């Protein structure tokens, strides 16, 4: 999984990443894998902001970022890459600016649009791995379909109120999103209650899943769905199954 042209680590990068290069099983090889990786994050809101921050901080070489619209006051409880002074201006500009402040070596490919049927193929083609942070199931299912078609791993992160869910889809090996949610659920509403600390918690874990898949160090949530409720700190891991009739990854697809 390397798409970056120069995965060698400079002396400066050795210094910046010295705290994590010493993590058992990571080392220079893991760090070079991160530098060589290109990760699609869509959208870059409450969840995606934290994923992008953590991956930029960890030294992922390239982020492909898709998020439409302008910064709204109601973004600021959780979308940590948006700033008050950028209200009314494009979200994606705020995202790129903040990420480059953290990691000026980061290469970005930014699109001021959300995922659509028209752009999903091009976005996934630029990426070794997807982190799905979108609020609408139409977008999530589009990315899932493209992930399965191109055998691109996809980390699935979601949240609601004080709860969150996380799984990692490895096409051909694990269930896909459509095995869990085969179609856009009519009861889901675009706006829902949530704290930024909830999106922050699952965003960090989604970033760690991405790092584990890219570096091969650790065991991702493959075929397992982590679900937790921060109201009472209940954490559960559920074994998920492929649907034989899944329209995306099943035998009928």
């Amino acid at each position, binding site marked *: 999984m390397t798409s970056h042209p120069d995965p060698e680590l400079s002396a400066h990068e050795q210094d910046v990443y010295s705290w994590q290069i010493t993590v058992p099983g990571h080392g220079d090889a893991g760090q070079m894998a991160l530098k060589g990786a290109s990760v699609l994050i869509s959208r870059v809101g409450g969840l995606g902001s934290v994923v992008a921050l953590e991956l930029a901080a960890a030294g992922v070489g390239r982020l492909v970022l898709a998020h439409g619209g302008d910064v709204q006051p109601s973004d600021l409880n959780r979308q940590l890459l948006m700033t008050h002074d950028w209200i009314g201006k494009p979200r994606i500009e705020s995202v790129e600016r903040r990420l480059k402040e953290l990691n000026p070596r980061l290469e970005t490919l930014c699109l001021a649009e959300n995922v659509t049927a028209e752009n999903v193929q091009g976005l996934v083609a630029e990426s070794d791995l997807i982190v799905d942070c979108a*609020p609408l199931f139409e977008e999530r299912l589009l990315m899932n379909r493209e992930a399965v078609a191109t055998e691109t791993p996809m980390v699935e992160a979601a949240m609601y109120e004080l*709860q969150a869910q996380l799984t990692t889809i490895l096409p051909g090996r694990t269930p896909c999103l459509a095995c869990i949610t085969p179609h856009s*659920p009519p*009861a*889901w509403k675009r706006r829902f209650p*949530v704290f930024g600390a909830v999106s922050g918690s699952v965003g960090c874990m989604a970033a760690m899943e991405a790092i584990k898949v890219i570096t091969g160090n650790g065991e991702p949530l493959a075929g397992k769905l982590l679900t937790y409720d921060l109201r009472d700190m209940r954490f559960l891991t*559920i*074994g998920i199954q492929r649907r034989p009739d899944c329209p995306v990854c099943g035998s009928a697809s």
Partner: protein
Amino acid sequence: MKLTLEWMSQLRVAAGTALQVLDCPDGVQLTEALEQAIAELPDDRSEALRPLVLVDGRRVSALLVALDGVQVLTDGNPELRPGSTLVLSSPIAGG
């Protein structure tokens, strides 16, 4: 026999509780147990929860159901064992 249900996401809000303990007849099947659980809630909770879980007596296809830690696919209606735990969640997303 006793069963435990854990409601998550929108279901928890609609049910007004995270946990529900059921006393069911032996050999009860999953869908019957869900019918019983919904019926035992106060009327307003039952009314809010039912369309998220059951439509025309069948489980909503987007519902995530886990029996003792393993997902039950939509067309499955297994017989439940004493002491089983069901976890139910409606789909959630990012934002």
